[in-house]
């Protein structure tokens, strides 16, 4: 039954995120944009006790043997997360990425890890000091085509350890997870370079492991508060059981596909972040224009609207359209349905929309939009990453195209 209402309970829970976004993130937004690579402690310190408590409660449930009963209804955990991302990104998309949690690395552990691995790697997020998890897939020469990665993991049968060598780039929270906390990074590497996708496995590398070094911290167009590093792996030894999933090279690329499944949730998550930035830019533009007496009269016919009013209305429509596409992909996950196509649809559209909306905002606001005294120009810079990471718009369009045409990777390259 078609319904656009977000459950009341989840709306109420979102109020906390709203408070953090307004009262903690916005006041420090410019500071950490200018102070690139500094940890936004006001935010991380505020979030950690809350997230730690949540994790603690989750582990208490697991350990008391309280198995989750089979649910009849939808599982709204994912919606809660998507809503939080939208709101925190409205606050500041770069700072949001510094949320002290297991992140994408945690998602990989949860998706394919054994119970023992989950306990070993995930339980730390319920105790002590703030921690981060990261995921390292991309390499200098393997971006969207990540199956061509060259980082290797070789089993040393004498010590029963994997030896990892290679280079990884664009690792979000790489420094926070490996150097600044007792976190971990999930590293993708091939155990059989001739096996293609089937040879690619993921390994958990603990912070402080010898041989791991940060090659550089990237200087970026936007989301400057977010820690993005290049990692160098030189004879990095990790225990045999740090491999996630089966260590066998199977004939099929099932393992690879399993890992790709995390995109079903992470693409709506990126879309939600894009929508959050879009809403920030839209609201600021509306408020500023309203001070100049420019308010859309929705009872006017289109031809009586000014060019500015038309632009503003299109910004509203495209913001809303992206959010609805995101909510649709999210609700499919909540209902346990496949959302591969819809996840890519919302990601491609939201990344494009936020790029356009934030650029329009800078344009409509004139010198005020271009000035670093307001946040409009920052949002325009922050926005663009959503058109790139978790699959560029082009990669997502390719996935959409294959899906609607019923084509394989081979048929549509």
């Amino acid at each position: 039954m078609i319904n656009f209402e977000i459950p009341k309970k989840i709306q109420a829970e979102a109020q906390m995120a709203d408070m953090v976004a307004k009262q903690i993130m916005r006041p420090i937004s410019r500071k950490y944009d200018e102070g690139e690579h500094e940890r936004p402690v006001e935010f991380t310190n505020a979030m950690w006790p809350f997230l730690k408590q949540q994790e603690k409660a989750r582990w208490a449930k697991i350990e008391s043997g309280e198995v989750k009963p089979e649910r009849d209804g939808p599982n709204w955990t994912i919606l809660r997360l998507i809503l939080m991302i939208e709101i925190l990104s409205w606050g500041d998309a770069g700072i949001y990425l510094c949320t002290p949690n297991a992140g994408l690395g945690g998602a990989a552990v949860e998706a394919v890890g054994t119970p023992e691995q989950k306990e070993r790697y995930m339980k730390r997020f319920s105790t002590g000091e703030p921690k981060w998890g990261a995921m390292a897939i991309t390499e200098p020469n393997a971006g969207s085509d990540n199956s061509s990665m060259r980082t290797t993991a070789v089993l040393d049968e004498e010590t029963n350890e994997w030896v990892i060598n290679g280079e990884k780039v664009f690792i979000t929270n790489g420094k926070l997870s490996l150097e600044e906390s007792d976190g971990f990074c999930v590293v993708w590497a091939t155990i059989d370079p001739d096996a293609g996708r089937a040879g690619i496995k993921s390994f958990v590398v603990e912070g402080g492991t010898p041989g791991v070094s940060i090659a550089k911290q990237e200087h970026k167009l936007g989301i400057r508060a977010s820690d993005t590093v290049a990692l160098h792996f030189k004879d990095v030894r990790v225990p045999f059981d740090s491999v996630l999933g089966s260590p066998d090279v199977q004939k099929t690329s099932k393992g690879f596909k399993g890992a790709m499944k995390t995109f079903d949730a992470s693409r709506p998550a990126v879309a939600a972040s894009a929508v959050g930035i879009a809403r920030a830019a839209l609201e600021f533009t509306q408020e500023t224009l309203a001070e100049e007496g420019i308010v859309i009269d929705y009872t006017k016919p289109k031809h009586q609207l000014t060019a500015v009013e038309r632009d503003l209305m299109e910004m509203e429509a495209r913001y809303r359209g992206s959010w609805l596409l995101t909510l649709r992909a999210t609700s499919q996950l909540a209902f346990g349905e496949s959302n591969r196509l819809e996840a890519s649809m919302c990601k491609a559209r939201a990344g494009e929309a936020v790029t356009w909306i934030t650029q329009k905002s800078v344009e409509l606001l004139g010198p005020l939009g271009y000035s670093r005294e307001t946040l409009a120009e920052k949002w325009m810079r922050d926005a663009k990453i959503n058109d790139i990471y978790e699959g560029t718009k082009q990669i997502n369009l390719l996935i959409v195209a294959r899906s609607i045409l019923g084509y394989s990777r081979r048929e549509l390259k």
Partner: protein
Amino acid sequence: MLDFRLDEEQQMLADTVHRFAEEKMRKEFREAEELGKIPDDVVKAGWEIGLLPTGLPEEYGGFGEYSAVTNAIAMEEFSWGDFATTLRILGPNLVAMPVYLSGTDEQKAHYLPMFCDEAMPKVTAALTEKAIQFDPRNLKSTAVLDGDSYLLNGAKTLVPLAKDAELILVYANENGETQAFLVPAGSEGLEIGAKGKWMGINALPTYEVKLNDVRVSAANKLGGDAGIDFTQILNHSRIALGAAAVGLMRAGFEYARDYAKQRVQFGQPVAQYQSIAFMLAEMAIDVDEARLLVWEAAWMMDQGQDATAETTRMKFYLDDISVKVADQALQTLGGYGYIREYPVELWLRNARGLTHFDGIAMI
């Protein structure tokens, strides 16, 4: 609670209308456009699906409750079949829905039962005026109270089926507000003019209508003294038109998709070239995004919320992207897209026409 899935009844309705659209509308629409006439049996079969009665309460002979969402779902399927035929079949809604939404109890009791009859009532509505700066909230046609009746004056265009209509709902400006008046055919001073010649939607005959001191009883003013809630009527209309735009976009997208898979150039289907594949992917996203914007506005209306902002921005946005998608569909077919043997050029013409309908198609 957030859900984007049709319920069982909506799915059944969508399937029924889709079957009709595929088996009947798609078979006749090209000839209907060229001849300017839709076969009677198609109109009859379409009417017999009974979309209108499902939205009217039992006391008037219907069997349901109006839902803008359900209506939008059906509208998309009809329009996927053919836009002109859709307007022909759902023409009675032009009167039924304003009466249902804004009529007095007497007016509802008097007019609504005929919409639940087996035979399609011959009624229409006149809103649009021949003005470049047409504004449905500031009409040039006037209504002036004179004793216990109204005098209507003005000129209307794009009035569907006016020639055969027995009753016309005329929108006119009364002291700066848009009001509606039920005008019987044959009223003195009511003049049905020339049949309109348009770029598209020619299967649906439309006419100019002139009002020269047409006198109607004050009892024929829709909503009585209080008048109508024109914004609500317009919002519902825009949702219906938005859903029609989605149907048109989807028709174009699906046709282009299927064509691109079988059209071979340079040794492979053109759909295997990224320039075509990406365009199709964008079109698919446009269709889904448009539908969600329509549904959200419709859902808000069903909840009794004011959705004026949502419906307005949705309609204006869809005006742009529906023409864009229709154009991309045509482009996908290359030269064949331009040939009238193929349906796509007509969908572009219809999409363009749809942007000029605002408020008239209270479906």
